[in-house]
C-alpha cells in the first residue's frame, strides 16, 4: 500500500484530541472556543493536505507515513481511500464552522471539549478500515451526545435503547461474519443483523425516533455534528455492502426510499424548526442510503455525490438555523417570524443551502441528484419516482420554512440581530463551496465515479469469493480443517501460507492497489 508523505491521518485525529483535553481544563468558555477554533482549523488543514497528498499518489488507498498505529498493532488500521478522501475535509469543515459560528448566547450550553472529542472519533471512524475498529469507534461515537444529554438532565432512554441495539447488532453481526468467514461463507443472520444495525444508525423508518428526539433534547450543534457526517452510510459501505445479497440490498433500498418520502412529508408539516430539520436530514440521508444500495455505477456515483452535497448543504442549512435559534430561541414554524430585515445574509444562506440540498440547478447538489435519479430509474423506475417525489416535498418544506422564519412580518426588537463577522465568514465559505461545486462539478464527479467503481469492484470480489465458497463441496466435519485449507487454496491460488479465513471475506477493503487498481489515468 502506498504511503502519504506525512502522518496526516494520525495528526487529524490527534490534534482535536489534544484540543479536547485542553478545552476540558479551561474554565473560561471564550478561551475554550479560541482553542477549539485553532484545533479544528489545524485539523481542517491536515485533512485538506491529506486529500491533496492522496490525490498526488494516484492510488485507491494509502496509509500514513511513519504510521504509529501500524507500528504498535502491526496492521493498517487508519487508511485513506477514494471513498473517504473528500469526506474527511468535509467533516472537519463542518466541525470548524460549527465552532466558529457558536455565538456567545450558546457558550454556556455548548461543550467545545466534547465537540473536539467527537471530531476526533468521527475522523478516526471515517479513516478506519478494520471492521472491528469501525464498530468500536461507532460505539464510542455515541458517548459525547449521551454525556451532553445527561448533563442537560434530559431523558436518555430513547437514545440508549436505539444506540444500545445498534451496538449490540453490530457486535453480534460482525462476530458471526468473522465466524462464517472461516468457512468461506456469510450466512443470512449476520447480514440481516448488520443491515438492521445500519438502518438503525441511519434512522430509517420506523427506527428513526432517536433522531428527532436527539434534535429536541441535545444542543443543535451536537445533534447536527452527530448526524451530518453520516457515519451510518460509512458503516453500510464497509460492513453491509460487500456481503449483502441482492435481496437484502433491495430491501434496504426500498425501506430507505419509503423513509425518504415519509420524512419529506413530515418535514413539510412540522411546526418546530428542529423537528423540521431532523426530518429534512433524515429524508436526505435516506436518499444517500438508497443510492448506496442501487448497485449501479451511476446510482452509486450519485449516492456518493449526494453524500457530499447533502453533508455540505444541510450542514450549512443547520448552522444557519442554529444561528437563528441563538437570536430568538426555539423557532416555531406555525407563525411568521419575519427576521429578514435583521439577518438578510443568514436568510440568503438558508435558502441557498436548502436549495442545494434538493439539487437545485447551479448548486453542488444538482448533478448529484440527477445521477441519483438516473441510477434509480435505471434499476427500477418507481424508485426514480420516489426520489423525485422526496426531492419535491423537501423543496416545498424548505421554502415554507424560509418564508416562516424570515418573512411574513417584521420582527420587532431593540437588540442588534445582524450577523457577526464569524458568521459572515462561515456564510461566504459555504456559499463559495455550494456554488463552486455546482458550477464546476466535473472534478467531484470524477472522483466519486472512481470511488463508486472501486466499491463495485470490492463487492464483486467479495461476492465471487462467497460464490466460490458456496459452490465448494460439502465438508465432512472430521476433515473440515483439510477441506478448509484446500478451499482457501482454491480461492487464493498461489498463496502458500495457510490463511484459514479468506481475506476477501474477512475484510473486503483490505487489498493491494495492484490487485484492485480501478483508477484510470489521473
Amino acid at each position: 500500500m502506498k504511503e502519504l508523505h506525512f502522518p496526516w491521518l494520525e495528526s487529524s485525529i490527534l490534534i482535536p484530541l489534544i484540543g479536547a483535553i485542553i478545552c476540558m481544563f479551561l474554565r473560561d468558555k471564550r478561551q475554550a472556543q479560541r482553542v477549539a477554533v485553532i484545533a479544528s482549523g489545524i485539523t481542517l488543514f491536515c485533512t485538506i493536505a491529506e486529500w491533496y497528498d492522496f490525490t498526488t499518489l494516484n492510488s485507491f488507498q494509502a496509509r500514513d507515513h511513519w504510521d504509529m498505529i501500524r507500528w504498535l498493532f502491526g496492521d493498517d488500521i487508519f487508511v485513506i481511500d477514494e471513498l473517504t478522501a473528500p469526506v474527511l475535509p468535509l467533516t472537519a469543515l463542518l466541525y470548524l464552522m460549527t465552532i466558529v459560528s457558536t455565538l456567545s448566547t450558546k457558550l454556556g450550553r455548548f461543550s467545545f471539549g466534547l465537540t473536539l472529542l467527537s471530531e476526533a472519533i468521527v475522523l478516526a471512524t471515517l479513516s478506519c478500515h478494520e471492521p472491528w475498529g469501525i464498530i468500536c469507534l461507532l460505539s464510542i461515537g455515541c458517548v459525547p451526545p449521551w454525556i451532553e444529554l445527561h448533563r442537560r438532565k434530559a431523558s436518555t432512554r430513547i437514545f440508549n435503547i436505539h444506540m444500545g441495539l445498534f451496538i449490540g447488532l453490530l457486535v453480534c453481526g460482525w462476530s458471526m461474519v468473522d465466524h462464517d468467514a472461516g468457512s468461506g461463507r456469510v450466512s443470512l443472520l449476520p447480514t440481516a443483523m448488520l443491515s438492521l444495525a445500519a438502518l438503525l444508525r441511519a434512522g430509517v423508518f420506523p427506527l428513526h425516533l432517536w433522531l428527532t428526539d436527539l434534535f429536541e433534547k441535545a444542543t443543535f450543534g451536537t445533534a447536527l455534528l452527530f448526524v451530518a457526517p453520516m457515519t451510518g452510510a460509512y458503516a453500510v459501505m464497509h460492513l453491509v455492502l460487500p456481503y449483502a445479497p441482492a435481496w437484502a440490498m433491495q430491501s434496504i433500498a426500498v425501506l430507505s426510499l419509503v423513509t425518504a418520502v415519509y420524512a419529506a412529508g413530515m418535514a413539510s408539516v412540522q411546526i418546530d424548526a428542529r423537528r423540521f430539520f431532523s426530518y429534512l436530514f433524515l429524508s436526505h440521508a435516506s436518499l444517500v442510503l438508497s443510492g448506496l444500495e442501487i448497485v449501479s455505477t451511476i446510482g452509486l456515483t450519485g449516492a456518493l455525490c449526494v453524500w457530499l452535497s447533502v453533508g455540505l448543504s444541510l450542514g450549512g442549512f443547520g448552522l444557519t438555523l442554529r444561528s437563528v435559534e441563538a437570536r430568538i430561541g426555539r423557532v416555531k414554524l406555525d407563525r411568521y417570524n419575519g427576521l429578514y430585515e435583521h439577518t438578510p445574509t443568514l436568510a440568503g444562506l438558508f435558502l441557498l443551502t436548502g436549495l442545494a440540498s434538493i439539487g437545485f440547478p447551479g448548486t453542488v447538489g444538482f448533478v448529484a441528484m440527477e445521477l441519483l435519479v438516473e441510477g434509480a430509474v435505471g434499476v427500477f423506475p418507481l424508485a426514480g419516482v420516489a426520489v423525485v417525489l422526496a426531492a419535491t416535498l423537501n423543496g416545498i418544506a424548505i421554502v415554507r420554512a424560509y418564508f416562516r422564519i424570515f418573512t411574513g412580518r417584521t420582527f420587532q426588537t431593540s437588540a442588534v440581530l445582524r450577523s457577526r463577522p464569524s458568521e459572515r465568514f462561515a456564510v461566504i465559505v459555504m456559499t463559495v463551496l455550494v456554488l463552486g461545486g455546482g458550477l464546476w462539478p466535473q472534478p467531484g464527479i470524477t472522483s466519486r465515479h472512481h470511488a463508486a467503481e472501486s466499491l463495485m469492484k470490492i463487492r464483486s470480489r467479495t461476492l465471487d469469493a462467497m460464490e466460490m465458497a458456496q459452490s465448494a463441496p460439502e465438508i465432512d466435519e472430521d476433515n473440515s480443517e483439510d477441506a478448509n485449507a484446500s478451499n482457501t487454496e482454491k480461492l487464493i491460488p498461489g498463496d502458500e501460507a495457510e490463511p484459514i479465513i479468506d481475506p476477501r471475506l474477512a475484510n473486503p477493503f483490505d487489498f493491494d492497489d495492484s490487485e484492485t487498481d480501478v483508477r484510470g489515468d489521473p
Partner: protein
Amino acid sequence: MLLNFIGLMVVASPAVLLAVLGLAALVRFRLTEIAMARCAQASSMIGLVASLCILAFMLASGRRDVPLEFGDWVSMHATTPDAANVENRNSTADNHDALADDGTNESFESFHFRLKFVFDRLSVPFVVMSFVLCGVIGAFAFKYMHLESGYGRFFLFYSIFQLGMVLSSLAGTIETLFFGWELVGLSSALLVAFFHDRPSPCRNGLRVWAVYRFADAAFLMAALVLHHLAGSGDFELLMGTGSWPYGVAAITENQALLVGTLLLIAAAGKSALVPFSGWLPRAMEGPTPSSAIFYGALSVHLGAFLLLRVGPVLEASWVLRVMVVSLGLVTMVFAAMTARVQTDVKSALSYASLVQVSIIVVEIGLGLYYIALIHVIGHACVRTLQLVRAPSVLRDTNALENALGDHLPTAPSMWHTWVSDANRERFYRFGWERAYLDCILDDWIVNPFVKAFRYADRIELALTKLMDGKREAATTVDASDAEIAGKK
C-alpha cells in the same frame, strides 16, 4: 469562431449580471440604484444585440439552426469489467445495464451533461423577445421601484429570471432546459413574495412554488425517461435530424405518450393551465413590473414554449395531441369565464392572458407551430404593455369618472341578452370561485396530505413520550436565548 463568440455573449450577458448582483449581495457591497439599473440595461442590450446579430446571420446565410457547443459540462464513462459484473448480478431491470455486444464484460454505462445551445427558428424569436421585454421592464422598474426597500432584491431576482429565460430558450439539451426552467420558477416564486413584510404574499409565493415543484418533478421525470430512451438529452437526437419544426421523434407512440404526458403536466404547471390555474391570480401579489414580465408575458408562455420545442414528440402520438387540444380548450373556457368577473385589474389581465395562452396550446396541439409562435410573441408584447400601463389606466379612469360625475358608459354584453339572470348568477359564481379549482386541490390533495402527516406526527410524539418514560426533558428548551438576546 466569431459566431461562437457572439453566441457566448447571448448566454453570458445575463449570467454576468447575476454574478455581479449576487456577489455584491454576498459581500454586502451596496450598489446604487442607478448602478443596478444600468447593469441590467447593459446586460439586456448586449444580449439583444448579440442575438440580433445571430438572427441576421441566419437570415443572410439561410441556415435554419446554429448549434453552439461548449462540450460536456459533466461527463462520466465506466469501463470497469467488475463493476459491470456486479450490476449484471444485481440488476432487476435489463434496460439499464449495457454490456458490450461482443460479449466482453465492458460496461458502457455513462452519463453526459452537455452544454449545448441552439439558435433556430424557435429559440431566436423567443430569446429576442425575452431580451426586449426584460430590457423594457428593467427600464420601467428603475423608476417604478425607486426607493423601494427591496430594490436590490428585485434586480437580483430579475437577473435570475432573465438568465433562466435565456437558458430555457436556447437550450439544446433537455437538461439545460430544465436548468433554466428551475431558475425561472424560483425567481417567480420569490418575486410573488416580494413584499414579504405581509403574510399574504408569502403564502401565495409558497403556493406558486409548490405548484412549480410538482410541475418540475414531472419535467425531471420526462427528461430522465427521454434520456434513457434516446441515450442522451440532446434535442437533436430526440427530435430527429430535421431542424425545428420538421424533426421526427425517434421514439415509439407509447413512449411518446408517456413522455408527452409528463411534459404536458410540466407545461400546465408553468403556464397555469387547468387544474393548476389557481396560482396565477395569487402571483399578482408581486410588484407590477414582475407581474407584467413574468406572469403576463414570459413565464406564462414557457409551458407553451416547452410544447413547441417537443413538437415532434407530440406528433408521434395522436392521443397526446388530443390531450393537448382538450386541455387548451378547457382552460380557455375556464379562463374566459373567470376573467370576466375579476374585480382587480391585474387578476383580470392575468386571466385574459391565460385565455390567449390556452388558445396557443390548442394551436400547438393542432400542429400550427408557426402560428403559435407568432401568437406568443404578439401576445407577450401586448400583455406586457397592458400590465405596465394598468396602474396609470386606473388613475386615468378615476380622473375621467370624476370629470363625468358618473361611471364610464358600458355597452350591454351578449350575456345580458342571451342568458337568463339565474344562469348568469350561476356562471358568475362559477367564475368568481375560479371553477372551484383551488378548493378541489385543497380538499382532495393538500388537506388530506397535511392531515395524514400531522396524524403520523402525533403518533410519533406519543410514541416518543411513551418510550421516554416519566423523566421529562428539563433543559431542552432554549427559550431563554430570546430573553438573553433581548437583554443584550
